[in-house]
């Protein structure tokens, strides 16, 4: 196809929504109002780990404007399993807490009221009967024998096909360590990161005259949200009509189906539009974050810079519930050894539960912490072995046809070419042997 026939590719196109943004005409969820609309505010756990013995709404009910409260008993299928449609479990997170809470901010009961003010007032008057339990906040503490257990199946880790972690076993790292001239070890830790979008998570559920419910939402995943909401409410999928696509900042923070099910339920129960929008505090403290990761590296390196053994033990802090973390840990395990050809690799990647905010999707989660740790480790190796950071990577870069530690053949290697281009862009002169390397030509063994 010749370039003359291209009208869009290769051309700068102004954003379709750009005029709306600069004139203020773009409509976000919280800009929408309907007559007789109710506001939903959530009662949340004030403690990290407790048995929920009872809820007393009597004072809340006296607030002018109080309409009703919703508890787990009102929810047709009170399980929120984000990947249930592709058969990924387990079913362990509630939409509304039943007998236990496992993180500060966990949703317990929904209050629906005439105004935002009265909803907030009513929430503040709900009395919770909580029997606090010991809590655990550190991933390694959570795996100790005396740790308080979060999950009904008796562990604080996700079970990967009968194992306590994702495991990669490739070659023999112990033999590699014996042969190596340098052993380089370190531990790397990322912190939880909150997406903090300018627009907080929210939706409006509106019953229509024909019996359907329209849900205006700022989710990043409309179909995902529709399906999960329908499953939780046990209604046919076609009963729901989701309208959205305008997201005031997502970054992965709006892929959890966290407001639509309960708002839609409230709309069904009251037959009125219901708005449920997170406050800034809820967005920062109760919504999911990118979970923290702790990563231990032990590398066996030859004095010419070749890494011949890599042993990695990592702990993902999933927080109180799974959400996307088990999936992220799998991706993580497949990536953390790096785009390098290493003959002996041993990886144990754990998905651990703690009484913290649940982690979920955010911009390459699983792999971004891995890249951070892995590349810091590569620089450290370069430093200890006495090579420059470019060299250590060219020496170890994998090429097409190599075998990755999790036993997939490399087909799309580009590290060498990217480094060559980067070196040129910054004016760094590479030695000839690196300039002439290629991902497609096998290195000499």
């Amino acid at each position: 196809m010749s370039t003359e026939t291209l009208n869009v590719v290769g051309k700068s196109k102004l954003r379709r929504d750009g005029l709306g943004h600069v004139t203020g005409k773009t409509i976000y969820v919280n800009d929408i109002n309907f007559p007789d609309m109710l506001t939903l505010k959530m009662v949340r756990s004030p403690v990290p780990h407790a048995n929920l013995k009872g809820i007393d709404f009597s004072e809340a009910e006296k607030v002018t404007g109080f309409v009703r409260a919703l508890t787990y008993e009102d929810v047709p299928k009170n399980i929120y399993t984000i990947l249930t449609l592709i058969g990924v479990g387990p079913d362990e997170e509630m939409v509304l807490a039943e007998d236990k809470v496992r993180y500060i901010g966990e949703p317990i009961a929904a209050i629906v009221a005439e105004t935002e003010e009265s909803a907030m007032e009513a929430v503040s008057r709900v009395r919770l009967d909580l029997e606090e339990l010991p809590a655990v906040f550190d991933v390694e503490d959570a795996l100790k024998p005396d740790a308080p257990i979060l999950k009904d199946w008796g562990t604080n880790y996700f079970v990967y096909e009968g194992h306590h972690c994702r495991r990669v076993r490739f070659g023999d790292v112990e033999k590699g360590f014996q042969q190596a001239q340098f052993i380089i070890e370190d531990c790397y830790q990322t912190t939880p990161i909150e997406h903090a979008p300018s627009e907080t998570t929210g939706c409006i559920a509106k019953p229509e005259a024909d019996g359907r419910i329209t849900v205006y939402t700022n989710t990043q995943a409309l179909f995902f949200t529709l399906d999960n909401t329908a499953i939780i409410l046990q209604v046919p999928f076609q009963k729901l009509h989701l309208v959205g696509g305008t997201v005031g900042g997502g970054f992965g923070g709006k892929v959890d189906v966290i407001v639509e099910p309960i708002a839609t339920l409230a709309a069904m129960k009251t037959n009125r539009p219901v708005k449920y929008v997170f406050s800034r505090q809820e967005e920062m403290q109760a919504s999911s974050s990118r979970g923290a990761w702790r990563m231990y590296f032990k590398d066996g390196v030859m004095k010419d810079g070749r890494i011949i053994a890599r042993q990695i033990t990592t702990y993902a802090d999933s927080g109180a519930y799974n959400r996307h973390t088990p999936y992220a840990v799998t991706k993580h395990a497949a990536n953390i050894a790096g785009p390098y050809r290493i003959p002996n690799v041993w990886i144990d990647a754990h998905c651990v539960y703690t009484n913290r905010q649940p982690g979920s999707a955010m911009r390459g989660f699983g792999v971004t912490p891995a890249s951070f740790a892995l590349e810091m480790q590569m620089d450290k190796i370069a430093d200890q072995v006495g090579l420059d950071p470019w060299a250590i990577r060219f020496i170890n870069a994998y090429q097409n046809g190599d075998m990755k530690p999790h036993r997939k053949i490399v087909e799309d290697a580009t590290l060498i070419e990217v480094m060559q281009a980067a070196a040129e862009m910054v004016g760094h002169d590479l030695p000839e042997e690196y300039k002439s390397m290629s991902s497609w030509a096998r290195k000499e063994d």
Partner: protein
Amino acid sequence: MTNRSYLLPETLEEVTKLLDEYGPEILVMAGGTLAMPLINEGVSTPEIVLGLKRAKLNYLRKSNGIFVVGATTSLTQMTEQSDIPVLREAANAVGGWAIRNMGTIGGNLFAPPPGGDFAVALLALDAELKFVGKNGARVMPLDEFYTGFLTNRMVPGEILSEVILPIPKGSSAFIKYGRRHTNTPSIVAVAINIVFDGDMVEEARVALNAVGPHPFRAKRVEAYLQGKALKEEVALEAAELATTEIEPFTDPIASEWYRRKMVPVIVKRALERLIA
């Protein structure tokens, strides 16, 4: 909540009358930058709010070597005056443009640390506070105002009406160290004013914020500097001495450890600006 009243008295006399009438249930609000966030979140639910915006407490006056600033003078107005440069710097260090337009110098005195940085400049300049109640007015040095975290020597029925400063002699320096270049809570803020006799320190004032329960003067540092020639080694020694007077805390902005580490660095930098 929807029964809330917003009273907007137009004179100081009316203000004190209302304070006396309603007592402690009233919430006093100037610019709203501290009170409104709490009200918006439902943390504070006052029935009666007394607004100071119309009480004519917004003024800058100079006479007989004294500078008098009304309590509801905005931080922006302080950035626009040229009589006292260090107050310009300190006001500019608070929040962003819109917050400075709304926030007042009086209100800033009630901001919990690590906020409330404007006070360090006022402390370094020996500012006094004037309080007015139904029984009259009294003046108190700012240095004696704070008693602890969010506690002070105001009494019920009083309103802060103005800040009084002698036109400063000597040289001043102000540094606010935060995680961002601007619009940031402090890790440590310092203001220094030194009256020199040649290169010798005749009198020093060193004030800090965000490293204790309230803004305060580092009096050991001040005493140490007095009578000494301000050289590199003296600045270093003085800065180290500052760590003996701080009670840093850990908050989402910085850890106690880090604040402790940064105090001598920032104090030294401020002193170095004043070395001739």
